[in-house]
Structure formats: C-alpha cells, structure tokens
C-alpha cells in the first residue's frame, strides 16, 4: 500500500510541482508525527480489547507530556520518558478505578479524565512557574534532546564514530520521477531517527505478538469479547481489564512524552492538540487491529506533517479529494443513489473551484487538515468495523448489571 501511496503522490508532484509532497523532510515529519498517534492508538487498542472504552487517552497524553517536560527538565530526557509513562499510568489508574471498580459509564469517565488532566497540567505548571523554576505558566524549560541515528550506508547512519554514506539522499536529489520520490520517502523514514521512534514503531508488532500469541493476550481479549464466559473459565476479568487500561495509560503517556521530548524539546500547553482522539480514530480505522492502526496512524501523521510544513502541498492534495469525490459520486449514480451522488458531485465542483481560485490555502484552514482527514477517513471506513463484543459495557462479577 505504501507503494501505491508514493506512486499517487509522485504523480501529484509532477502535475502540481508541490515538491514537498515526497520530500525527505515531509516523510520524516510524517513518521515523527505518526508516533504519538500510533502510541495513543495502541493504548486505545489494549484498553478496548479488554472491554474498556478509553476516551481519556487525550488526558493521559496531556499528563504524559507534562510529566515528560517536568522529569525531563529535572533529570534528563530518558528520565522524562519514564516519568511520562508514570504520569500516563496515574491518569489510567483513575479511569480504571472509576470504570472497573465503580462501574461509571466509560465515556463519561473518559471525558472527566480529559477535563481533569488538562486542568491538572495547567495547575501544576502554574505552581512551578510561580515557584520560579519554569519560565512560563504554560511551558517548561527546554530539555536536552535524545540523539538521532539512521540506517547504515543507505541513510547516513553514524556508528561508533563512522559516518556512513547517504545513498538514498543522493538518489533522491536526482529528481527522477518515482525513483527519486521513493528514495526520498525511504530516506525520510529511515534516517535521522530517534531511538524512541524505532521503539514506538516496534511496539506495533510487539503488541500484535502480546495480544494474539500469548495467553495473557488471549485472556485480555476474552475480557473484552465475552467476560462472563471468561470468568467461568477462571480468568480474572477485573485484573485483565485493569491491565488493559493501565497499559493503555502507559502507552498514551509515552506518546505525550514523545511529543514533549522528541517531536519538540519542551512541554507546551495544548501540545497534544487532539492527537489522543486522532489515535482513537486510527484504532477505529484499523478495525481494532495493530496493522490497520499503523496504516491509519501513518495517514493521519502524514496529514499532520503536511499541515506543519507546506500549505501548497495541501493545496495539491485537493486534486486528490476531487478525484476521490468524482469516483464516489460515479459509484453512487451507478447504484441509482442520485441525491447522494449529486451531492458528492457538488462537493467535487466546490473543491475544484476552491482549487482554481486560491493558489494557497490560508494558514488557519491548513491547521484543520489532520482533523478533517480523520473525519473523512472515518466516514468512509466506518461501515465494516467490528468492535470487541463487550466493549464499553461495565462489568460486574457474575454478570450482574
């Protein structure tokens, strides 16, 4: 699928001249910005597979980002990451206690966690600011960054002091259609990587292994699919649910810490910017499976990266939207759904007009891209999803209501 995407983007680049679509910078930003989304989505996966809906991922990410800033300033970036995990765990513990032990509705508890976490982060930041150690009430001082590295030979990785040649970059700068685009994208994805990025991506197959190839994972999934049956077989459903939510909080906290320490170098209020929710959307898009979730996160990370880097690239993406809308409306007319079909056609016409009139998208609209992308993707993919059967249902021992 990556091949297809790069191919489509290369054609777009040729047609519109928006060279940033397949540049090294965009690919590496896309990867960087996908990581928090991947981590949040994995968090959502563990929690929902255990049967607990976790809307509070955003809040746990906020706590993680704050923890990353706080511990990172005091003890360095690696301590910051560990601290962010613990802060995420703290938020998850509250959510778990409220939903599993007390049976509060999962969405209500999650929304409450989001509100509380945002408030707590602001409160603690203000205290630190007034105490003199932080520079501003919503921002931590800078943290030293974790060093970067890349693949040997291909992407200029540095090992034991030897700087290897950067073949992919050379190939990419030749500007050959498709080959250079591929080279650029691969270079972006494999060069100048933080170790944490590699760890985060590795967590995807690791999660698959844990959930589908270990007995712990089987018990966790059974708690989310058929808890009463699992209980009758001796699975401690409460413990499994707790495990799922706590792991989810740890992952979300790590995602927040990543945002504060790797994607940037300090904690900033509102750093998470809804990425916890986008992570949830990626999990939905991936149909509660790690592979699909990675694809979804990559897609949203790409939209995020484009939005940060180059508005003209998004402008070029409009063509893609128009083509997609034309295809969808064509399909609607084939199925005699004339009203919906004409509506889609009208949207296609609107976007074409928009594309012709504005040579560049205004900055404020560009910031909407990841959220708009999430909405569009969700609305196109929502039909064939299958959630864990007991997801979102408060559970009591013995199957009581």
């Amino acid at each position, binding site marked *: 699928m990556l091949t297809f995407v790069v191919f489509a983007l290369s054609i777009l680049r040729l047609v519109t001249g928006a060279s940033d679509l397949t540049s090294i910078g965009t690919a590496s930003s896309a990867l960087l910005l996908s990581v928090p989304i991947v981590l949040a989505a994995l968090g959502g996966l563990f929690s929902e597979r255990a049967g607990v809906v976790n809307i509070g991922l955003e809040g746990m990410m906020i706590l993680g980002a704050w923890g990353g800033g706080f511990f990172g300033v005091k003890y360095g970036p690696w301590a910051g990451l560990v601290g962010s995990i613990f802060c995420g765990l703290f938020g998850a513990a509250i959510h778990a206690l409220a939903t599993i032990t007390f049976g509060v509705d999962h969405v209500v508890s999650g929304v409450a966690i989001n*509100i509380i976490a*945002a408030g707590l982060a602001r409160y603690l930041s203000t205290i630190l600011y007034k105490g003199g150690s932080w520079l501003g009430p919503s921002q931590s001082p800078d943290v030293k960054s974790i060093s970067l590295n890349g693949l040997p030979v291909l992407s200029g990785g540095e090992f034991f002091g030897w700087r290897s040649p950067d073949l992919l970059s050379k190939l990419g700068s030749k500007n050959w259609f498709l080959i250079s685009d591929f080279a650029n994208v691969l270079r972006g994805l494999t060069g100048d990587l933080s170790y944490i990025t590699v760890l985060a991506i590795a967590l995807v197959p690791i999660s698959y292994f844990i959930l589908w190839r270990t007995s712990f994972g089987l018990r966790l999934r059974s708690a989310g699919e058929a808890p009463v049956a699992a209980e009758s077989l001796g699975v401690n459903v409460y413990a499994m649910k707790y495990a799922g939510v706590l792991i989810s909080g740890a992952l979300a906290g790590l995602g927040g810490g990543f945002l504060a320490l790797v994607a940037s170098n300090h904690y900033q209020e509102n750093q998470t910017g809804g990425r916890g929710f986008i992570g949830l959307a990626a999990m939905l898009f991936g149909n509660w499976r790690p592979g699909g979730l990675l694809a979804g996160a990559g897609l949203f990370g790409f939209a995020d990266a484009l939005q940060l880097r180059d508005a003209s690239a998004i402008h070029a993406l409009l063509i893609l939207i128009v083509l997609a809308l034309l295809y969808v409306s064509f399909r609607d007319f084939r199925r005699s759904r004339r009203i919906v079909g004409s509506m889609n056609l009208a949207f296609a016409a609107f976007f074409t007009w928009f594309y012709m009139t504005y040579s560049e998208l205004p900055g404020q609209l560009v910031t*909407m891209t990841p959220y708009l992308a999430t909405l569009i993707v969700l609305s196109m993919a929502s039909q064939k999803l299958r959630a864990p059967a007991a997801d979102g249902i408060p559970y009591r021992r013995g199957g009581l209501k």
Partner: protein
Amino acid sequence: MKRLLTSRISLALAAPVFAAIFGLGVSSLAVLATKKSPWDAFSLMWKYGIESASLMAAVNLATAYFIAAVAIALTFRAGLFNIGVEGQLRLGALVSAYFGAMFTLPPVLHVMAIMLIAMLVGGSWAAIAAYMKVKRGVSEVISTIMLNSISGGLAAYLLSKHFTVRVPGSNDLSTKILPKSGQFPDLMPMLNKIGIKNQPGGGVYGMLFIAIALGIGFWFLTNRTRFGFELRASGANPMAARVSGVNAKKMTVIALVGSGAIAGLAGLPTVLGDTHAYNLGFRSGIGFSAIAIALLGRNSAVGMAISALLFGFLEVASQTLDLINIAPETYIIMQGSILLSAVVAYEVVRRFQLTLHSEALAKVGDK
C-alpha cells in the same frame, strides 16, 4: 414504603454531599502541598465570593455554563455524547455577531434575530456530526471532537480574513460592534428597584432570563412531553424504545441538532451583554466546563443550575487567592475533584439503591 422513600431522598443527597467533601479534601491537599493553609484559602474565597460584585460575576459565568450544559444534557439523556458544544457555541457567537452587526431592527427583534442565527449555526454544525452518525455510523464522540478542532481553525480564519473590523490601537481582531438594538440590556435597572446596588465591574447579563426560560423549557420537554419521554427511553433502553416505535435515527438527529442549536446560544451572554462583538478574547473552554456541569447536575435542570452556580462561584472566588500567594488555578483542582467524586458517587449510590430495592422486593415475597 415510607422508609424506602426517606432512604431514597437521603441517598440522593448523599452523592453530592460526598462529592463536595471529597472535592474539598483533595483541594485542601493540593493547597497543603504548596505549603499554604487550606483554611485560609477557603475562608478568603468565601469572604470574597459572597460580595455582590463577585456573585454577579459568578451568575454571569453560570449563565453561559448553564445554557451549554442544557445542550449537552439533551444529548446525554438520549444516550448520545455531544462533546462538540465548544465548537458550536464559538461558531454560533462568531457568525451571529458578524451578521447581527450588519442590519438594524427594533430592539427585541434584533436580539431575537441574532439568537436565531446563532441557533441555526450551532444546529447546522451539529448536523454534520448527526449525519455522519446516522448515515455512516461514525461515533459522535469522535466526530464532535474533531469538529471542535475544525471549528477553531474555521473561526480563526473567518475572524481574521472576512469578519473582522480592525480595532484601532490594539492587536485585537473583532467583528463590528453590535448596534444598541442588538445588545441585550443589563438587568441592573431592575435589580436596583429591589434594592441591589450597582457594582463596579459590570452588571448582570440580561440573558439570565433566557437561561432560566431554557431551563424551564428543558425540564418541561424532558419530563412532561411525549417527545421527552421517547428521548429518555432512547437513552435508558434503546431496545425497548425501538420496540415501542421510536425511530432511533430520527431521535439521534433531533437530539444532536437541537443540542447544537441550544449550544449556539451559549456563546451569546458575553457577546450580547458585555463585549457586543466577537473578538480574540472570546472565552474558550465553556464547552468543557459545561460537560462537567451536566455530569455533576445529572442532566436535570435544577441540578445543572446549582452546579453552574457552584462552578461560577469557585472560579470567581478563587481569583482572590492571589492575595495570599496561592495559584488562582486552584479552582481547576476543586472543579475536577468534585466532578470525579460526583461521577463515582452517583454510580455507587445507584448500585446501592438497586441492592436496597431488590432487598425490599425480596422481603415482600417473604410474607
């Protein structure tokens, strides 16, 4: 039976009381952690908060919170979650402020027209989420949250590029100031007559009346009309509702769009009563506090009114904490801990009531 009733009432009170105690407890811990005395903090807040000026400010805050909370409660009752109130109220305020300044009508009609525009905008924004839920099965939790973020960018774009009139001598962007006929009159003249004196720092927003009317209307709608019954049924037991003829999709659309329309009004108290325009200083976060208030008030008009007043009081009163060197943001901790403990307490009490109920039923069978 009588014993069951009194125990029910005491249980109903137990949850909020417990929540208040727990909230105070956690906030005291937070204040203690900064090496200050909680007793000083609370007594100062109380002294300052009781003053007329603070109470008026609290009521003004509570007006906006209450309207937004009613919007959210409408969907909560139907088993849906409209988290997008923040975006709906922002767009409602912006668009209605812009269009409202373009024409002049006789005073009452002008204000009503502005409110109508705000409701239309809020309702349409929520309709997007409703459409996606009904036609594509997208969870309204995520779609409304995404629409929130999108509305932030959209509002910023509209304000800076199209809707604004540059305010001379400042960095602020603002829509054109509403003419006199479009401003909601202050309630001070009326209050003066019953002995409440004018205070520095503004009066009481006239939209308080709208909020009260909305609360009464909400209570009437949900408790005394057939539609309200169907709404509550859809939330309490979707299967039973469907079997008794409620069209789930229609209910979803009506609940979400209606909620968005009411939410559109929530940004107006400040716009109509204070700034008379939409500018960069527009208060953000009303929508999220309103969610807390709706949860705290258990989606009932009276509960939400009390919770809104409480939240407004805490927010205003805590501004004075600066005087004894405590972060005013302590009110966030108070609000958060009250919310969490209330949500847990309601559930615990509900379970306990169920146990009591089944025990009582079992006793009946024992005759």
